[in-house]
C-alpha cells in the first residue's frame, strides 16, 4: 500500500498576528506553523530533561522504577548536564558572533575602510582605557583587546569585563567565584564537563552556567552591539514600516537572516552603487532591496536611519521567514547564522529562490556557500550580486506573487538604544526615573528572546506584553519577540490606548508607544546597559530595580545563555515553558528559588499571560516598596 508523503496538515498553529495566521493557513506549501500539529505529542522524558544519550548504554530515562541511568547518573546529574550543554552551545553561538564582529572591525580598520561612527569608537575606547594614534589604530586596538579576552584560557580572568560591568555586580560575581575566564575556553570547559562520565555535580554545572551567562552577556551581547555601532552607525529613533507590506516586488529582493550584521556592510553599500543598480535595471528591476528577517533584520531596522535607501524594513521574525518567502517576491536569501530555519529550503526550491550562505557555521543544505572573507569581499560580493540577479531573471514571471500588502504597519517606533533613549529623554535618565518614582510607570519589563510556534506563534509574548502595559509597566523588547510585537502594532504610538492610565499619559505626552523596540536579541545587552545606567543614577544594585525580564517564548540554546546572564544580573526571569529542567527537583529549586540568595535572580515559569503578568507585577511592587517608592 502506498502512503501519501506529500500532503501536509491543513491546520496551523495560532499566531498573535491574525492576518499572518490567515495568510499562512492559506499557503499552498508547508511551514513550521503546519508542522506543529504533527509534532504535538512531546516526549515526557525530554520535556523534563531526564533523557540521557551521552553514551552507548543509553538513551537512559528516569522513571520511578529506574531512578538512575545505567552509569548511575540520577535525575539531578542528567538534567544539569543537559542544561549546561545547552547553555554552553548557546554561549558559543554568541561568542562566535562577537569574535567575527571584532575581526570585521579590525580588518576594516586595517584596510582604512568605513568607520560609520567615530563617536562610538572614541566612547568605547575611553571606557576601556585604550588610546590610539588615529581612528584606525584605535579601532584595531579595541578589536584586539576584545579578541585577546575571548582567547584567554579559562583560568585567566577576562579584563574588559572589569570596565564594562557594573561594579556592585562585579563584586557579587567575584564573591560567588563566577567571574569567567576567556569566553571561548569557558564554552570549551563547559562542553567537556557535560560529556560522558565527567562532571556529575549539578551545583558545579549550574555555577558554570552562570559563568557562561556573564561571558555571553558582557561579550556576546553588550560588546557586539558596541562594536557594531562603530562599524554600522548608532541607532537613531525614528518611525519605520514593518511586516510583509515592506516587500516591494519591483526590486530584486534579498531576505537577510542571521545575527552578524557586520558581515553585510560591504555588500549593502555595494548594492547601491551605480554599476550594480544598472545591472539590476538591465535585468528589469528598479534596483536592490534588503528585506529584514530575524535578528540581523532587526539590527538593520535599529540602525535604519543610516540605510533608508537599501533597507525596505523588517518583515518579520524567525517564524515569519517562511511566509516572507511564500510571497514570491523574494529572489534570494543571504544568511549567516540562526535563525535560518531548515523549513525555508523546500520553499526556496519550489519558488526558485537562491540561497547563499556566508558563514559555514550556518550552512544551509541547499545554499551555495560563499564564506565571508574580508580580503576577497569585493570579488565575493560581486559574485553574490550576479547570482542574485540571475535568480531574479530566472524566476520572475514563472513564480506567482502572493503578496500581503496590508500586513504590519507603517509607523513602528524603532532605533531605541541605551544612547538614543537617553538622548530622547533630554540627555538624562532623570525623567524616566521620575516617572517610575511617581508611579506613572510602575516598572520596566524586558520582553526579550525568541519566538516559538509549538504553543502558538508570538501568542504568549504579545498577550503578556498587553497585560504588562495595561499594568503601567513599560516594556522594552529585544529579539524575535520584537518582530512579533511590532507586527501586532504594539510599537506604534496608537498602542498607547492599550496601556494603563499612567503609562498611557506618558506615551501620549511623548508621542511614543508603550513598548520600546531595541531590535535584535543582541540588544538584550543594551537593556543591561539601560539597567546599569538607571541603577548607577539611583545608586543601587541592579537586582534592586523594579525591573523584570521575560523570555516568554524562548526557543533556543542562545536564549538559555542569555537567561543565565539575566540570572547573574540578579533579575527575575519569566519563561513560558521550562528549559527541560523539571525532572530534577534540585536544579528546579536552585533556578527558581535558591538563586535569589545567590545573585538575586530567579526563574519564573508560567505559560499563562495573565498570571505571569501578575507575578511580575508583584515582584515590581515588592522592589518598589524596598526602594521606598
Amino acid at each position: 500500500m502506498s502512503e501519501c508523503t506529500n500532503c501536509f496538515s491543513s491546520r496551523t498553529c495560532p499566531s498573535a498576528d491574525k492576518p499572518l495566521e490567515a495568510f499562512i493557513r492559506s499557503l499552498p506549501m508547508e511551514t513550521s506553523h503546519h508542522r506543529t500539529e504533527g509534532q504535538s505529542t512531546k516526549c515526557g522524558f525530554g520535556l523534563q530533561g531526564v533523557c540521557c544519550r551521552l553514551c552507548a548504554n543509553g538513551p537512559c530515562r528516569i522513571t520511578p522504577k529506574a531512578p538512575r541511568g545505567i552509569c548511575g547518573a540520577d535525575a539531578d546529574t542528567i538534567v544539569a548536564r543537559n542544561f549546561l550543554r545547552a547553555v554552553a552551545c548557546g554561549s558559543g553561538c554568541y561568542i562566535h558572533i562577537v569574535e567575527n564582529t571584532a575581526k570585521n572591525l579590525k580588518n576594516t580598520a586595517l584596510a582604512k575602510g568605513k568607520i560609520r561612527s567615530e563617536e562610538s569608537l572614541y566612547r568605547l575606547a575611553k571606557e576601556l582605557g585604550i588610546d590610539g594614534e588615529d581612528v584606525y589604530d584605535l579601532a584595531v586596538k579595541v578589536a584586539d583587546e576584545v579578541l585577546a579576552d575571548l582567547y584567554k584560557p579559562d583560568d585567566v580572568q577576562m579584563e574588559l569585563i572589569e570596565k564594562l560591568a557594573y561594579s556592585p555586580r562585579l563584586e557579587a560575581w567575584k564573591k560567588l567565584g563566577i567571574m569567567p575566564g576567556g569566553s571561548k575556553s569557558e564554552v570549551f570547559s563547559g562542553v567537556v564537563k557535560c560529556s560522558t562520565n565527567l562532571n556529575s555535580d549539578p551545583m558545579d554545572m549550574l555555577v558554570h552556567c552562570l559563568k557562561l551567562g556573564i561571558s555571553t552577556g558582557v561579550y556576546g551581547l553588550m560588546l557586539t552591539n558596541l562594536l557594531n555601532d562603530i562599524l554600522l552607525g548608532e541607532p537613531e529613533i525614528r518611525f519605520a514600516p514593518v511586516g510583509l507590506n515592506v516587500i516591494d516586488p519591483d526590486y530584486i529582493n534579498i531576505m537577510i537572516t542571521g545575527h552578524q550584521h557586520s558581515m553585510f556592510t560591504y555588500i549593502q553599500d555595494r548594492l547601491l552603487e551605480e554599476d550594480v543598480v544598472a545591472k539590476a535595471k538591465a535585468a528589469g528591476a528598479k534596483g536592490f532591496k534588503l528585506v529584514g528577517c530575524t535578528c540581523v533584520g532587526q539590527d538593520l531596522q535599529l540602525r535604519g536611519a543610516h540605510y533608508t535607501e537599501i533597507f525596505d524594513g523588517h518583515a518579520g521574525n524567525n517564524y515569519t521567514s517562511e511566509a516572507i518567502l511564500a510571497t514570491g517576491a523574494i529572489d534570494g536569501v543571504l544568511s549567516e547564522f540562526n535563525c535560518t530555519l531548515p523549513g525555508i529550503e523546500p520553499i526556496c526550491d519550489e519558488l526558485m529562490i537562491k540561497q547563499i550562505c556566508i558563514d559555514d557555521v550556518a550552512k544551509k543544505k541547499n545554499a551555495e556557500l560563499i564564506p565571508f572573507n574580508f580580503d576577497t569581499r569585493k570579488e565575493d560580493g560581486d559574485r553574490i550580486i550576479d547570482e542574485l540577479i540571475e535568480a531574479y531573471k530566472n524566476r520572475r514571471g514563472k513564480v506567482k506573487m502572493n503578496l500581503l500588502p496590508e500586513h504590519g504597519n507603517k509607523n513602528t517606533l524603532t532605533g531605541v538604544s541605551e544612547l538614543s533613549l537617553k538622548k530622547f529623554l533630554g540627555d538624562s535618565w532623570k525623567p524616566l526615573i521620575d516617572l517610575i518614582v511617581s508611579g506613572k510607570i510602575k516598572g520596566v519589563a524586558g520582553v526579550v528572546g525568541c519566538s516559538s510556534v509549538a504553543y502558538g506563534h508570538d501568542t504568549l509574548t504579545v498577550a503578556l506584553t498587553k497585560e504588562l502595559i495595561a499594568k503601567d509597566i513599560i516594556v522594552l523588547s529585544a529579539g524575535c519577540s520584537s518582530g512579533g510585537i511590532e507586527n501586532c502594532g504594539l510599537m506604534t504610538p496608537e498602542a498607547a490606548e492599550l496601556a494603563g492610565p499612567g503609562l498611557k499619559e506618558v506615551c501620549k505626552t511623548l508621542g511614543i508607544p508603550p513598548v520600546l523596540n531595541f531590535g535584535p536579541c543582541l540588544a538584550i545587552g543594551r537593556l543591561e546597559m539601560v539597567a546599569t545606567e538607571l541603577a548607577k543614577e539611583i545608586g543601587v544594585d541592579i537586582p534592586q530595580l523594579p525591573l523584570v525580564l521575560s523570555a516568554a517564548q524562548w526557543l533556543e540554546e542562545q536564549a538559555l545563555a542569555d537567561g543565565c546572564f539575566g540570572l547573574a544580573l540578579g533579575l527575575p526571569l519569566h519563561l513560558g515553558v521550562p528549559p527541560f529542567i523539571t525532572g530534577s527537583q534540585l536544579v528546579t529549586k536552585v533556578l527558581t528559588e535558591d538563586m535569589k540568595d545567590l545573585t538575586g535572580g530567579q526563574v519564573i515559569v508560567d505559560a499563562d499571560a495573565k498570571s505571569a503578568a501578575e507575578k511580575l507585577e508583584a515582584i515590581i511592587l515588592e522592589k518598589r516598596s524596598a526602594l521606598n517608592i
Partner: protein
Amino acid sequence: MKRIFIDAHKCDGCMSCSIACMNAHREDGGDSVYTLDLTDPKNQSRNFIKKNPTGGYIPLFCRHCDDPDCANACMSGALKKDLATGLVKYEKEKCAGCYMCVMNCRYGIPQPDTSLHYMVKCDFCEGKDGPSCVKACPKEAIYVKEV
C-alpha cells in the same frame, strides 16, 4: 464497548504512554507533565513497554478481558467485569491485597501498589475523554476500537 488495541510493530518504545498513564493517575493534583515527579515510586504506570527479545517492543496494556483472569481470581470481589461498559473495574475498598490478580493475569497487568496494600490497574481513564495513553502515543501503536 471500547477496547485498547495494539499494533506492536508501530511501537518505538518511547514510553509516552507510560508517562501519560502516570500523569493521569497522579495524586498530587498536578496535571502538567512537566511537574510529574519521575523519581516518586508512587507514580506507577499501569501499562508497560517491554523489549521483545526478537526485536521491537511489546506494549502491555490491560485488555479488560471478556473472561478476566484477575477478576476470576479475586476473592474479595474488588475486581469485577462490568457487563455494560465491558471494563474490568476495581473497588479499592474491597481489596484485601492478596494479589491473586497479580499472579493470575496472563499479561502481567495488575501490580501491587507501593504501599503493598492495594493493586493498581488500568481504569480506561474513566471520567476522562478516552484513555490518556492512547492520546499520548505519537505512533498510533495503540488505539481505541469499538468491539
